[in-house]
C-alpha cells in the first residue's frame, strides 16, 4: 500500500488552508464591514469557485501560473517552477476552497452587533485592535467552521489539481487522484482503503466542529 497520496494530500490541504485563512479572514471582515466600490462584484466573484466547473478554474489558473502565464513567466525568470509541482496543488486546493472560508467567516462577522465594534472605537481602540480584540474573538466559531470546511474541501480537490499540478505519481498525485487512478487500473482494494480514510478524516473533523459550536466564546 502506497501512503504517499495521503501524506501529500494532508500537507497540501494544510498549507492551502493556512494560506486561505491568512488572506480570507481579513478579506471576510472587509466584505462584512466596509463599504467600497466593487464590493458586490468581488463578493459575487468569490462565490464562482463553488459553482464553476473545476476544469474552468484550472484552465484559468494554468493561464496565470503556466510557463507562458503572467505569474509563471516571472517565476520562471527566477528559476522557480510552479505549474505541475506540489505547490501548484496547494494553489489549486486554495482556489477551490477559499469561498467556503470567506463566506462562513463573513457571515460570522456580519452577525456581530455593530455597536460592539463602535463601542471599542469610542474607547480608543484602532481598527486593527478592534479586529483582534472584538471581531475575531466574537466570530471565532464561524472562522473555525469556515477553516475546517475549507480544509475538507482542499483535501478533496480533484479537477483544479489535475489541471495545474497534473497527476504525477510520487510527486503531485494527491489522494483523490490516486483513488481515480486505482479505479481506472482496477486496483479496487487500494481505492477502497483510500476512500475509507478520506471519509473517516472528514467525519472526525465534522464531529469536532459540532463540539466546538456548543462552546461559549
Amino acid at each position, binding site marked *: 500500500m502506497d501512503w504517499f497520496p495521503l501524506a501529500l494530500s494532508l500537507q497540501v490541504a494544510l498549507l492551502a488552508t493556512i494560506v486561505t485563512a491568512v488572506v480570507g479572514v481579513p478579506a471576510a471582515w472587509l466584505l462584512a464591514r466596509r463599504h467600497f466600490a466593487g464590493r458586490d462584484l468581488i463578493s459575487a466573484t468569490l462565490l464562482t469557485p463553488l459553482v464553476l466547473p473545476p476544469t474552468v478554474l484550472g484552465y484559468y489558473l494554468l493561464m496565470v501560473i503556466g510557463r507562458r502565464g503572467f505569474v509563471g513567466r516571472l517565476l520562471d525568470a527566477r528559476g522557480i517552477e510552479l505549474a505541475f509541482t506540489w505547490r501548484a496543488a496547494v494553489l489549486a486546493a486554495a482556489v477551490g476552497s477559499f469561498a467556503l472560508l470567506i463566506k462562513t467567516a463573513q457571515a460570522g462577522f456580519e452577525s456581530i452587533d455593530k455597536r460592539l465594534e463602535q*463601542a471599542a*472605537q469610542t*474607547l480608543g*481602540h484602532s481598527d486593527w485592535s478592534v479586529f483582534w480584540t472584538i471581531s475575531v474573538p466574537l466570530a471565532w466559531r464561524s472562522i473555525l467552521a469556515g477553516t475546517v470546511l475549507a480544509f475538507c474541501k482542499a483535501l478533496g480537490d480533484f479537477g483544479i489539481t489535475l489541471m495545474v499540478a497534473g497527476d504525477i505519481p510520487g510527486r503531485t498525485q494527491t489522494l483523490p487522484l490516486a483513488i481515480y487512478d486505482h479505479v481506472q487500473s482496477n486496483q479496487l482494494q487500494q481505492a477502497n482503503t483510500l476512500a475509507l480514510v478520506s471519509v473517516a478524516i472528514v467525519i472526525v473533523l465534522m464531529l469536532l466542529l459540532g463540539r466546538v459550536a456548543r462552546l*461559549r466564546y
Partner: protein
Amino acid sequence: MLSIAVRKRLGDFTLDADWTSDQPIIALVGPSGAGKTLTLQCIAGLITPDAGRVICAGHELFDSASGVNVRPQRRRIGYVFQGYALFPHMTVLENITYGKRRAEKGVRPLLPVIERLGLRDLQSRYPSELSGGQQQRVALARALATDPDLLLLDEPLSALDAPLRRELCTELSQTLREWGKVAVLVTHDLSEAYQIADVVVLCEAGRTTSAVPKNDLLWNPSSERVARLIGARNILRGVIADTRTESVALDWRGVRLEAAQSPSHNLHARKGDELAFFVRPEYVRLIRKNRVVSDNLRQTNLFRGDIIGERDEGTTWVLFFRVAMEGSPAQGAYDLEIEIPKLVYERLNVAADRHWDVSIHPGSIQVLPSY
C-alpha cells in the same frame, strides 16, 4: 459647551440637527425614528455628516468647511449604547478596563468608579450573568473609565422595567452631577429627561429645536409645535377679545376665558387675532353642586356643559367634556379633556351625574405664541 450643527442624508431620511448648550446635561427627546441616535453617532464620529460642525468644550471635532474630522478614537467621548453593547466575551472588569486611555494606567484608578457603581463583587462575572440594572452600571463605568470630556447616553433606562427604571433614573442623575462634565441623554420619555437633564432638545423627523431649559419647555412652551411634541393635551384656538399686561381675554366656543399671560412671551397678537393655547386636563376643576361660588377666582373661566365620555386609567379618570354652547366641539365630539383623581370621581359621584360646571384657573391656561 457643546454645539452641533450637522446635516446628514441617509436614504429618505435627512437629519438636520442644530443646537447649542452651555448647560452640562442635555436631553434629546423625541419619538423613535426622529434622528436622536444618529445625532449621537455624528457627535461620536461613528457617522460622518454631509455638512456642518461639532464643537465640544472648545475642541472642534468636525467641520466640513475646514475639513476637520477627528477620528472616534481621539474624540474623548464616552458612549453608553442602547442595549449597552457590553463585550460578551469579557468579564465585567475586562469590559471596564478595556478603554485605551485608561488601560495604560492599570486598574487602581478605576476602583472608585467600580466601588461607586456597586460593581466590586461582580468584577469576574460575564455580561450575560448580569441583570439589566447591573449591565447599565457596567456600561456607564466602562464609558466613564476613559475619563471622557463628553458622555453620550442612548436610552440608558429604556431596557429596564418600571420600578428599576425609577431607581436608576435617580442614580444616573446623581452620578452625572457628581461627574460634573457634559452629557447628552437620548430618551423618548420627557419625564426622564426632566428628571436628569438641565436643558431639552426636541427632535422630530430629523429636525431639532434649540436647547430649552427644561422648566421653560414644560411650563412655557414656545410654540404650538413644541406643545404638541411635549404631548400637551387640549391644544385649542381662541380669538383675542382683549389684551392687558398680565393677562389676555379669549373667546372660545362662546365662552370668555381669562388667561394669565406669561411675561416672557412677547405676543404680537392683537384684538381679533386667533391664538393657540392649551389647558392641562388635570387643572380643570369640576364645581360641586349646590355650593355658592363665593371667591372671584372661581367665577372666572366658569362654564357649563356635559360629560359625554370617560376613560378609567386606574388611579385617575379622564372625562370628555362638551361645553353647553351652540357650534361644533373643539376636539371632535368633545371640547375638553379633564383628568381627576379616582377619589374625587367617586366622592362627586361623577358616574351618575353628567351635568357639570367647570372652572379653569387663569394661570392654567397656557397661551402659545404663533410666529
